[in-house]
């Protein structure tokens, strides 16, 4: 069996965010780092918010953790009071060595998942996430690529074959892997449009910082057009020992 991929699930725990439907099933085979965070305004000391809200936040975090555990995941809980949600996400993701971060949107129990792949750099990590989550389930995945300038279909097929063999090496059933190519277009828009047919989306991190993706422009573009959960696979940390 593959190692459980470590997935960061950030929840604004005191602002009514919770684990959306379908997510427990999606992450049943994951090791979830459940990050409850609360952004306090600059006027407030973070310790001050802790003093008052810690108990309530922990209670909710405990409950959300159990929901994930009941579905089969293993869960580590973190609670952080911060002035800067992005920095906290980046730090925890780095510190806890997470392969991917979930943008928590609701979904039905997943059957078909779209996996957007681009360069070879992130393929190994994407494969670990996808195979880790879905190899022992009946979920079928579709590898998806938007053609780039100077790319022939042969190039892309070779690339897909490489990804496919990685996934099968990690235990995926070859028959559960499909492929799809879209002609050259605006990549994020094309991904979002293609994802509408699917229950969840797995994609690589397109910016140096995860944060700009989850909260920033590209994240908004995806979230506006695709309402399902998105797993953003993190780049390889620059220094492997920095866990």
């Amino acid at each position, binding site marked *: 069996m593959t190692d459980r991929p470590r997935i960061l699930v950030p929840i604004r725990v005191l602002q009514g965010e919770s684990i959306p439907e379908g997510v427990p099933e999606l992450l049943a085979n994951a090791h979830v780092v459940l990050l409850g965070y609360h952004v*306090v*305004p600059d*006027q407030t000391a973070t310790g*001050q918010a802790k003093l008052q809200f810690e108990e309530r936040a922990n209670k909710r975090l405990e409950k959300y953790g159990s929901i994930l555990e009941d579905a089969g995941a293993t869960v580590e809980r973190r609670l952080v*009071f911060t002035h800067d949600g992005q920095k906290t996400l980046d730090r925890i993701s780095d510190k806890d060595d997470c392969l991917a971060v979930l943008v928590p949107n609701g979904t039905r129990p997943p059957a078909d998942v779209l996996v957007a792949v681009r360069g070879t750099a992130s393929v190994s990590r994407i494969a670990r996430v996808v195979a880790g989550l879905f190899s022992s389930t009946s979920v079928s995945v579709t590898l998806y690529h938007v053609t780039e300038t100077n790319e022939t279909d042969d190039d892309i097929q070779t690339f897909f074959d490489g990804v496919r063999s990685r996934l099968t090496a990690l235990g995926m059933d070859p028959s559960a892997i499909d492929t799809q190519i879209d002609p050259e277009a605006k990549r994020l828009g094309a991904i979002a449009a293609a994802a509408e047919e699917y229950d969840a989306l797995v994609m690589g991190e397109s910016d140096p910082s995860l944060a700009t993706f989850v909260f920033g422009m590209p994240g908004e573009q995806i979230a506006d057009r695709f309402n399902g959960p998105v797993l953003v696979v993190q780049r390889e940390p620059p220094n492997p020992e920095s866990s």
Partner: protein
Amino acid sequence: MADQPVGPGATGQNVAGESPAEAPRTVTDEAIVHDDETELERTIGLVGGLAIGIGTMIGAGIFVFPGLAASTAGPAASLSFAIGGGIALLVALPTAELATAMPRSGGGYYFISRSLGTAAGAVVGLGLWLGLVFASAFYLVGLGHYATAVLAEVGIALGVDPVVAIGLLFGLALTALSIGGTENTATLQNYVVGILLVVLTVFLTYGVLDAFGAFSRQRTPEVFFSQGTFPVLTTAALVFTSYLGFAQVATVAGEIKEPSRNLPRAMIGSVLVVTVFYVVTIFVATSVFGADRLGAFGETAMVEVSREFLGLPGAVAILCAGLLATFSSANASILSASRAVYALSRDALLPRRASEVNLRFGTPHVALLAAGGPILVLVATGRVELLAEVASFLHLIMYSLICVALLVLRRRNPDWYTPSYRLPGYPAVPAVGALTSAGLIAFMQPASIVVGVVVMGLSYLWYRYYASNVTLQGVL
């Protein structure tokens, strides 16, 4: 992510049966981690720290004091500012060392309560809160003067003197904004400080060139010590309010990233920056008008200096800068006062309720009101010099004790005291720092000293009544 020292724990109960909140387990460069795995993110970088320090200080020294200082000390007022800066630096060094040993929120109060005990901590902590209240009131009255000057500039004449009314209005607005506002005030502060520094650099460069005759203007030759040497010291005591900001960096020490590196740099750096700006400002201002005429312009003297150089645009630029600077100083001080209330309440020296955070805005409304309320009362007095001196008095007591705390900790060297920054020149620097900060008090007006002593006495009585069973001192 090297672990930082944590500082000692605290025990005991106050009258209401509340105990100090538990100390964290580990303190890293990026977060404070408590036993129950809850973490507090550090989010303020070096620029943010410098902005807090400079932003708090620069409002007063440049935009309120030049006229007042020049009228009492003559051109030697720039020496008064240099003396203030020297003392501030002597205190900033020990504060930086202590802050790297105990990078927790609360600043000077925290260091003193952990090293010299609860009684000294309570007097200093309550003094810090009220000192900041006096300082904010002082900045708001200064703001009132600038707003009045703006009104005069655009030709609106009011029957009554609007300084106090405007100060009150802004005080109310600031308190309300702090309670209800959720926008990113820290980033805003960085920009405000950046703009101020640019405006001032342009203005002062022009002024210095002028003073050395680059524009062959007729200047007023003057004797440096036109009022004698003693007023230089009384003026230093008065204008010391312009140097209260560096310790505010320590009040948010718990939220500063890589505290061992950023805390000393932010504190010492902000003192050096503002000292240079102050000294040059006074030099330029007195060389344009001569001290007597400058003094006659009062709180907004810098506007006239700028008008003399650059005409109406210059006056407008300095008016706007003055509004921004006094506003940002008042804002920073209110927030620091609220942090001080939180630190006291965390340690059970004030009711836990005082640090309560409201659900709607996530802001500490009780602590902010505990700052804003008394500020309004003090603004209503409208007495710039008294407010400034009492603020300085309460801070100077704390500064002096910070130096003593450093001497005690270095001497006893307890296990938990492992600062990552060590000041040069021990023991001379902290010893001189303690003596000069306490000594400066002697040059204040009697009324300010009386008010300061009364505040300290009441603080001590409060401690005896409310929290005499609370132990905050670490094992020495």
